[in-house]
C-alpha cells in the first residue's frame, strides 16, 4: 500500500475533493452542524425535520444549549482549579526573579548572578492543543499580578531573528498603548515598520514607559502601579520551544543578555516533550546565559480523570454517556491525541447529537422539570416512548391490565414515565456512590484486575453485569486477603463516601460499615492479648528444648497447627465485609442498559461518533472515486458489481480504469479504454466509423481527468518510459 501525501496536504486534497462532490455526507472532523454555527444563528429549527413541532424540537434545542453552557462553565472551573498551583508557582518565581533589579543592588556577586536571564521551563506535555488555554490563563494572571508587558511568541511567526524582534516589539508596544488610554497624546502610535527593530530601541522604550509611570502618579495610573512594581519585568513566552530554530533562539538570548541590566527580561519556554530539549537546542555558551527553573504541569491523564470524575460521575447533569461512546472518547484520548480539549469537544458532540437525533431527549432535564415536561408530551412522543426497546421489555413484564393501559392510555403512560425517570435518577445517584466505594477496594488490589482508574471500573460496570465477570471474581478473592489496616482504612473511606452522597438509602449501609469498623477495633484489643500469650508460650518451649531433633519437631508442629487452624475471628469478619460489599454491588451497579427508559438520558450511538471523530480520509477518497453514488445520491450512477457507468464523472471513470493497471500506465491504452467506456452507451452502433479516431472532446475530457488525478496525487509523470505515467497508490508497487 502506498500513500503519497503528507497529512497536511492530504487535508487540502480532501477539501478539493469535497468541493468536487458537492453533496458530501461528512466523514471528517466535525460536520458543519456543530454548536457554534447553531449558536450564532440562534435558530432552533435546525433540529426540526418537518415544519410542525410535535417532537419538541425547540425545547430540545434550548435544553441542549443550557446543558452545554453548564458543562462548559464547569469544565472551565475545573481547569482553572487544576492550573492554579502551577500558575501560583510561576507567579512567585517571576516576582522573585527580578527583585534585585528593583533594589538596584551593586554587590559584586549579585551583579554576577544577574547577568543571567531568569527563565522558566514549563513542561506541559505532548497535548499541544491544550496548551493554548494554559498560556491564555498564564498571561491573564501575569497581567493581573506582575506586569503589563507580556509577549507570546510562536515559532511559526519567527523564522528569523528579525521577525521575532518585530513580533515582540509589536506586542509589547501595543500592550502599552492599550493600558494608556488612546487619547493619550504623547504616546504616538508608531506603526511597526517605522520603529527600528533592535533591542536598544526596545530598551529605550522600556525606559520611557517606566519613567512615565514613575512621574505620572495621579488618578489614572494609580490603579496599575499598585498592582505592578515600578519597573515590572518584561515576560516573553515561547509557546512551542521545540519548533523554534536554534539560531533564532540563540541570537535572541545572546542579544537580550547584553541588555539584561536595562531591560528586566524573563523568558518562559513552553515545552511539550522533556526539558532535555533546552540542552539540545542551546549550546553551553548560550544556556549559561540563562537561569533556568523547571515547572511541570499536571499530566494530561490526571487531567482527564478529574474531568471524567467531575462531569460524568456526578448526578448534576442529566445527560449520560453510554459505555461504548465513553470507550470511543477515551480511546481517542489514550491512543491518539492526549488532548483534554478534544475529549470535551467529543462530549459536546455527544450532547448535540443526542438532543438532535433522539426526540425524547426533551425529557433529559433536571429532576424538577421532568413532571412538567412529561405531561406536555404530544401523542407522537408517547408513541416514541412506546417504541423504545427498554420500555417494551418493561411492558412485557407487567400484568396484562397495566400493559393495555400503558399501550393505549397516554395519560397513564405519562405518569408512569415520570415515575420511571425519577427511578432512573435515583439509580444514578446510588450508582455513583457505590461505584466509588467499589473503586476504593479495587484500586488497591495487586495488578488491578478491574483497572486502576475509576473510569475503567465505570466502563466495566456499564458494559455488563460486573459481578458476572472473571475480573470481578478475582478481585473479590484478592479482597478476601487484604490485611487489617488496609481494610479498615478502606472501610473508613467508604463510610465517608456514603455519608456524603445525596442518596437516601445509604444510611443503613453506612451504619453497617461503621458496625464492621467497631468490630475490627474490638478484635484488635482481644487479639493483642491472645497473641502475646501464644508467642510467649511457644518461645518458652523453644528455649526448653535445645537439641536439633526436638527443635525441628516443634517447629513442624507449630506450622501444622497454623495451617489447620480454624478461621480466626478477623478472617470471618473479613469475609463478611467482602460479602456485604458484593451485595451492594449486585444491588446498585446494574448496567444502565437494563434500566427502563435509559435511551432518554444515555447516548450510545457509537457509529455516528466514530464517523465524526475517527475520520478515514483514504477510505472516503476511495469510496468517492470508486462509488460516486455513495455521495452524489444520483440513481443514474448506481452500478452493480464493479462495472463502470459512463454517467459517472470523468475522474471516476479514469480512476476505476487505473485501478486495473500496474505500476506504469500506458496513456494511449488508458485513453482508448476511457473512450470506449464513455461512448459505449451513447452510440452503440456507430463504433465502426470512429473506432481508430478518438473524438477531440473525449480527448480533452480525458486529459482533464488525468490531470485531476495527478493533482490528487494518484499518479505522476514518469521518466522511465515515454507516454507512461507512474501510479502512486494502492497496489501500485
Amino acid at each position, binding site marked *: 500500500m502506498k500513500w503519497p501525501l503528507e497529512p497536511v496536504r492530504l487535508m487540502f486534497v480532501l477539501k478539493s475533493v469535497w468541493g468536487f462532490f458537492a453533496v458530501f455526507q461528512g466523514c471528517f472532523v466535525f460536520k458543519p452542524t456543530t454548536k457554534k454555527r447553531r449558536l450564532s444563528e440562534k435558530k432552533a429549527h435546525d433540529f426540526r425535520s418537518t415544519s410542525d413541532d410535535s417532537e419538541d424540537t425547540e425545547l430540545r434545542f434550548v435544553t441542549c444549549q443550557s446543558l452545554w453552557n453548564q458543562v462548559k462553565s464547569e469544565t472551565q472551573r475545573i481547569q482553572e482549579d487544576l492550573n492554579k498551583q502551577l500558575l501560583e508557582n510561576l507567579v512567585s518565581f517571576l516576582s522573585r526573579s527580578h527583585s534585585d533589579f528593583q533594589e538596584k543592588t551593586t554587590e559584586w556577586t549579585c551583579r554576577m548572578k544577574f547577568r543571567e536571564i531568569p527563565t522558566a521551563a514549563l513542561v506541559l506535555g505532548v497535548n499541544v492543543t491544550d496548551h493554548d488555554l494554559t498560556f491564555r490563563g498564564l498571561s491573564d494572571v501575569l497581567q493581573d499580578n506582575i506586569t503589563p508587558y507580556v509577549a507570546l511568541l510562536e515559532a511559526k511567526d519567527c523564522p528569523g531573528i528579525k521577525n521575532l524582534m518585530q513580533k515582540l516589539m509589536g506586542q509589547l508596544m501595543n500592550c502599552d498603548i492599550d493600558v494608556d488610554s488612546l487619547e493619550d497624546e504623547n504616546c504616538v502610535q508608531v506603526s511597526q515598520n517605522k520603529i527600528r527593530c533592535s533591542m536598544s530601541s526596545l530598551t529605550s522604550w522600556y525606559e520611557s514607559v517606566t519613567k512615565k509611570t514613575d512621574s505620572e502618579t495621579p488618578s489614572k495610573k494609580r490603579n496599575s502601579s499598585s498592582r505592578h512594581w515600578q519597573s515590572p519585568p518584561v515576560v516573553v513566552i515561547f509557546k512551542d520551544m*521545540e519548533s523554534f530554530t536554534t539560531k533564532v533562539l540563540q541570537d535572541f538570548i545572546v542579544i537580550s543578555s547584553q541588555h539584561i541590566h536595562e531591560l528586566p527580561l524573563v523568558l518562559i519556554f513552553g515545552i511539550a516533550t522533556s526539558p532535555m530539549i533546552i*540542552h539540545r537546542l542551546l549550546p553551553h555558551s548560550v544556556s549559561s546565559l540563562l537561569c533556568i527553573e523547571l515547572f511541570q504541569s499536571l499530566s494530561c491523564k490526571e487531567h482527564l480523570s478529574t474531568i471524567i470524575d467531575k462531569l460524568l460521575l456526578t448526578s448534576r447533569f442529566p445527560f449520560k454517556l453510554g459505555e461504548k461512546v465513553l470507550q470511543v472518547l477515551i480511546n481517542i484520548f489514550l491512543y491518539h491525541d492526549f488532548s483534554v480539549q478534544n475529549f470535551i469537544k467529543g462530549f459536546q458532540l455527544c450532547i448535540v447529537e443526542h438532543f438532535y437525533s433522539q426526540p425524547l431527549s426533551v425529557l433529559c432535564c433536571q429532576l424538577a422539570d421532568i413532571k412538567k415536561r412529561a405531561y406536555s408530551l404530544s401523542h407522537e412522543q408517547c408513541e416514541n416512548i412506546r417504541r423504545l426497546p427498554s420500555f417494551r421489555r418493561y411492558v412485557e413484564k407487567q400484568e396484562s391490565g397495566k400493559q393495555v393501559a400503558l399501550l393505549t392510555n397516554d395519560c397513564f403512560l405519562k405518569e408512569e414515565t415520570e415515575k420511571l425517570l425519577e427511578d432512573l435518577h435515583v439509580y444514578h445517584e446510588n450508582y455513583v456512590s457505590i461505584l466509588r466505594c467499589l473503586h476504593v477496594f479495587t484500586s488497591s488490589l495487586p495488578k488491578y484486575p478491574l483497572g486502576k482508574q475509576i473510569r475503567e471500573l465505570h466502563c466495566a460496570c456499564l458494559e455488563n453485569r460486573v459481578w458476572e465477570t472473571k475480573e470481578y471474581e478475582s478481585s473479590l478473592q484478592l479482597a478476601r486477603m487484604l490485611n487489617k489496616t488496609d481494610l479498615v482504612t478502606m472501610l473508613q473511606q467508604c463510610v465517608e463516601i456514603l455519608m456524603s452522597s445525596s442518596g437516601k438509602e445509604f444510611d443503613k449501609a453506612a451504619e453497617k460499615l461503621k458496625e464492621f469498623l467497631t468490630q475490627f477495633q474490638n478484635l484488635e484489643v482481644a487479639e493483642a492479648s491472645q497473641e502475646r500469650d501464644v508467642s510467649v508460650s511457644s518461645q518458652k518451649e523453644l528455649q526448653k528444648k535445645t537439641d536439633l531433633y526436638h527443635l525441628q519437631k516443634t517447629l513442624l508442629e507449630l506450622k501444622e497447627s497454623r495451617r489447620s487452624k480454624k478461621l480466626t475471628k478477623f478472617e470471618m469478619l473479613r469475609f463478611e465485609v467482602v460479602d456485604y460489599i458484593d451485595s451492594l454491588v449486585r444491588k446498585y451497579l446494574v448496567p444502565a442498559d437494563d434500566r427502563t427508559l435509559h435511551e432518554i438520558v444515555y447516548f450510545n450511538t457509537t457509529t455516528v461518533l466514530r464517523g465524526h471523530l475517527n*475520520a478515514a480520509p483514504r477510505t472516503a477518497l476511495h469510496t468517492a472515486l470508486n462509488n460516486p453514488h455513495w455521495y452524489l445520491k444520483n440513481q443514474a450512477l448506481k452500478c452493480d458489481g464493479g462495472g463502470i457507468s459512463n454517467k459517472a464523472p470523468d475522474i471516476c471513470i479514469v480512476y476505476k480504469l487505473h485501478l486495473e493497471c500496474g505500476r506504469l500506465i500506458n496513456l494511449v491504452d488508458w485513453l482508448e479504454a476511457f473512450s470506449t467506456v464513455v461512448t459505449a452507451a451513447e452510440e452503440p452502433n456507430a463504433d465502426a466509423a470512429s473506432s481508430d479516431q478518438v473524438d477531440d472532446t473525449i480527448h480533452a475530457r480525458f486529459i482533464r481527468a488525468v490531470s485531476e488525478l495527478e493533482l490528487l496525487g494518484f499518479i505522476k509523470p514518469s521518466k522511465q518510459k515515454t507516454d507512461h505515467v507512474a501510479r502512486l497508490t494502492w497496489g501500485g508497487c
Partner: protein
Amino acid sequence: MPNLEHPAYPAADLLHLESLVPCRESQVSTLLSIFGERQQFSFPSVFIYGHTSSGKTYVMQTLLTTLQLPHVFVNCVEYFTSRLLLEEILIQLQSCSSGTEQTSPVHCDTLNDFVRLFKQAVANRELQDQTLYIVLDRAEQLREMEANILPAFLRLQELTDRNVTVILLSEVVWELFRPNIGCFEPFTMYFPDFYAAYINILLGVFYMVCRDLKELRHLAALNFAKYCEPVVRGEANERDTRKLWKNIEPHLKKAMQTVYLREISSSQWERLQHDGGEPGQLKGLSAHTHVELPYYSKFLLIAAYLASYNPVRTDKRFFLKHHGKIRKTNFMKKHEKTSNHLLGPKPFPLDRLLAILYSIVDNRVAPTANIFSQITSLVTLQLLSMVGQNDQLDGPRYKCTVSLDFIRAIARTVNFDIIKYLYDFL
C-alpha cells in the same frame, strides 16, 4: 614608574588605566603606540582576536573611555543587518557629538550613503583633529552581510578621507575573514588566554572543562560563600588551605554536575546552599527525560526508529511470518557490517513507516486522519524530522531523531521488545 608610557596622555590617566587592565598591559601599550597621539592618523583598521573572554571587549572599552578618545562601539550580533549596523553607527556618532540635542532619524541603506552621512557627521563635530575609533564587536557576523561591507570597513579611512580607525573584535582568526577577492589587510593582534592562578581550587575543578572567564567568575561568585563557611564558623583561618579545600571540594564537584551544566539554576543552587540541603533532592533538567505519548504515537515512533536503523531488505525478515531462516552473516552486504547506530538514522518513506506500524501493532489500525496527524505532531515535537520536501507528489520522507535509550524506554511502556527487531543487535 608605570609600565604604560605615552607622551600624549597624562601619566595619572595611564596609571589608572593600568590598574583597570591587569594582565593586559602589553596589549594596551601596543595599542597605544599604534594609536599615536590624538590628532595623528592611525592604522586604518586593526583586527583583534582571541578566545572567549580574553578581555577584548573590556580592554577596548576601558581604553577608549578612560582616555576619552572619541569612539563608537557596536555589537554586530545585535545589529544583524547591514542597514541596522550602519544606522546604529551614525546614531551613536550623532548622539555623542551633539550631546543632548534631539537626534533626527537616520536612513542609511547602502555603504555609499553611509560614507556620505559619515562625512557629514564628522564634519559637524569638532573632531577633525582627533582620530575617531569605530569598534565592531563580534565582527565575524560581518561575513554574513553583503560582500562589500567588510572590505569597506577595512579601508574606511581611505573611503571617507577622514581620520578614522576601525577596530574589529572577533573570536575567529583573520584567515577566515579574508574575502576571495582580497582586501586591505588590517593590523592583526592576538589576545592570549588568561593563565590565571587565582582561586586555584576552583580552577583545579573547573579549568578542565571550562576556559570561559565569565563562567568561571560566575561559579566563583556562586561558591564563594560556601568556601568561607569554615572561616565564618571559626573552624579554620584563612591560611588553612587544606581544611578549606576539604570542605569545598565535594561541593564544587557537585556544582560541576549541576549548576555548571545549568541542570539547576543558580538561584536554586544558592537556596540549596542556604538550607544546607543536598542537590539530590532537586532533580535537574536531564532527570526529566520521560515523555508521555499517546499509545499509537509510541508505536509510530518505534516503527520510525526501526525504519531509520534497519536496512530495507531486512524488513521481510523481521515482519513476515514465514521469512525462512536467513543468517545475518549470509545476507549482509559488506557496507552493512558497520553498525547502523554509528552511522545515524536514515530517511524512510511514509508508506514504509505505516507498513511497519501495521505489523507491530497487535490489533488492526485503520489509517484514519488521527494517525496521520500524529505523524505531523511527532515532527513538530522534533521526535521525527522531515527530510527533503521539495517534491510534494513524492511521498514525504522522515528520519527518527530519538536516541536508543529513549526508544527503549518508550518500547518498555508498551511491552515491545525493540532489541529483537533491530538489525544491529541480531
